[in-house]
């Protein structure tokens, strides 16, 4: 009987084996954990967006073509989407529990819900500040 022991492999084969094992290792972070981090980001950035737009009026500061759109809500929404897709992945990646690609795919799954929640929070804070 042939035993498959590490000493029977060459160094090159060992490296390949380690790489394959690493690739096949399932992510420890579930979609649910990323989802809840995203929920928190949506709520916090929704509130922040309102106060930033209301008090700093970036559209008055920058004079760009379509300035208000790109420097006002557009800019804040871009920061939000970027945070939504990167922050949860980064948090768990540095804890060594997820890889960028699989984390990114999981982060994309609830994008619609998160964006709807973000604007709902913005609208709600706007309404209570009348």
């Amino acid at each position: 009987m042939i035993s498959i022991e590490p000493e029977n492999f060459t160094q090159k084969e060992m490296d390949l084996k380690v790489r394959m094992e690493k690739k096949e290792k399932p992510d420890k972070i579930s979609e649910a954990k990323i989802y809840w981090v995203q929920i928190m980001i949506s709520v916090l950035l929704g509130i922040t967006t309102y106060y930033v737009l209301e008090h700093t009026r970036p559209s008055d500061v920058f004079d760009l073509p379509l300035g208000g759109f790109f420097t006002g809500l557009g800019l804040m929404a871009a920061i939000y989407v970027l945070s939504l897709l990167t922050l949860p992945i980064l948090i768990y990646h540095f804890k060594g529990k997820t890889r960028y690609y699989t984390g990114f795919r999981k982060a994309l799954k609830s994008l619609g819900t998160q964006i709807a929640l973000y604007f709902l929070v913005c609208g709600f804070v706007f309404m209570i500040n009348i």
Partner: protein
Amino acid sequence: MKKGYVKGIVFGIVLLNWVICLLVVPNLLIVQGPAGVDKIYEGPYAGNYLVTDGYGSIKIINFTSNQIVWQTDEPKFFVHDSRMMPGGNSVLVGDSAADRVFEMSLTTKEILWEWRAKNSTKEQDSYCNYLNWTKFGLQQGWNETALSIVENLRPTSGFYSHLNMVQFLKGSNYNRSYDSVLISLRNFDLIIEVNYTAKIGEAAYMNITWHYGTPGNHSILFHPHSPKRWLNGHMTICDSENARVIEIDEQDQIVWEYRDKALRWVRDCELLPNGNYLITDADNNRIIEVNMSAGGQIVRIFSSLLFNPYSAELTDDNKVVVSIDLGASIVVFDYETGAVIQIIGFNIIVVPAMITFLIVAIYQTTDLIYSWKKMKGTSSKQRILTHSIYSKLILVIISVLTILILNYVLIFLWHYGLWHLFETMPRPG
């Protein structure tokens, strides 16, 4: 049926809803973008309403039969304000697209009087014209910034002057020997009175009999709306970007100022018979009645079904008539109870958005029930703690809450983002 197909069908229905509401429905409505509505009290059309249908024409509408009884298609884009002239036989129109004010006969549709806000020469225009803003500005001691604003014919923001309001002032009401027309030039941060009885051919810049504000000097006015001179000679002005309403006396001194940090884009102010003021707080989706003698106390709020209202008027039969230009509708309130008693038109922004969230809520609820049933054998607690269940439930809750405060979610998008985009869109002409 595969889930992918169902999602595709749902997406198709949502898309169809927007296409119908934005492209088909407006053609079937009697108003497309009412920027102003006033009840007519004299003349052949007394009892009807004069509607400035911003993106179409000036219309006289019978609110009882929902019929257009008179209309003109001149200009086609974009009329901003109109008022009946004394006697009710002609209408004074503020035309933003062409930067002009004109008076049109209701019987012949002939233009009886015209004033243009752009520099011109005597040869070009037959009415009291050949305006020269530079000469006028130099006479007033305007600085270079002010002159550069009035000389820039292609501003990046909206129209040239963005002429947004007109009012005919009968001279005898103000101890004057001449009649005049009050005009608001939003992009110039300026309100002027023009001599209506001036002879044709006279220099128009000499016929600007009064003005308030200086272009670019936002400490006086910043994008004003709806100035109105009342019979006591005082004038109320909605100083929109400065989030305030002011009243000035005949010596141009501020008598009172209603400033509230919560005001967002005030666009109309009416003096009521009881001495209160009816203020249109557009980006807060509300009309407020303010008692200035009680220090600016809000005594009434009308907000049901409103989305970015433009103007509001209290009629002689105790109705508050509110025009919503962006939402293509007119909402009539009972003044005493605040109840909505009539809606003319169809809100082409809020309704399709509401339908979209309704479809999402229905789809997600169905999906949730299906997933719930699939998990037979597990307890309800286990089911609810499953990601595929609670994520759908959360989306249903978000959709329902969004429907409930949709007016505010949409006005948030408009106030901080889409309005700027709309303002910088290229204009015809």
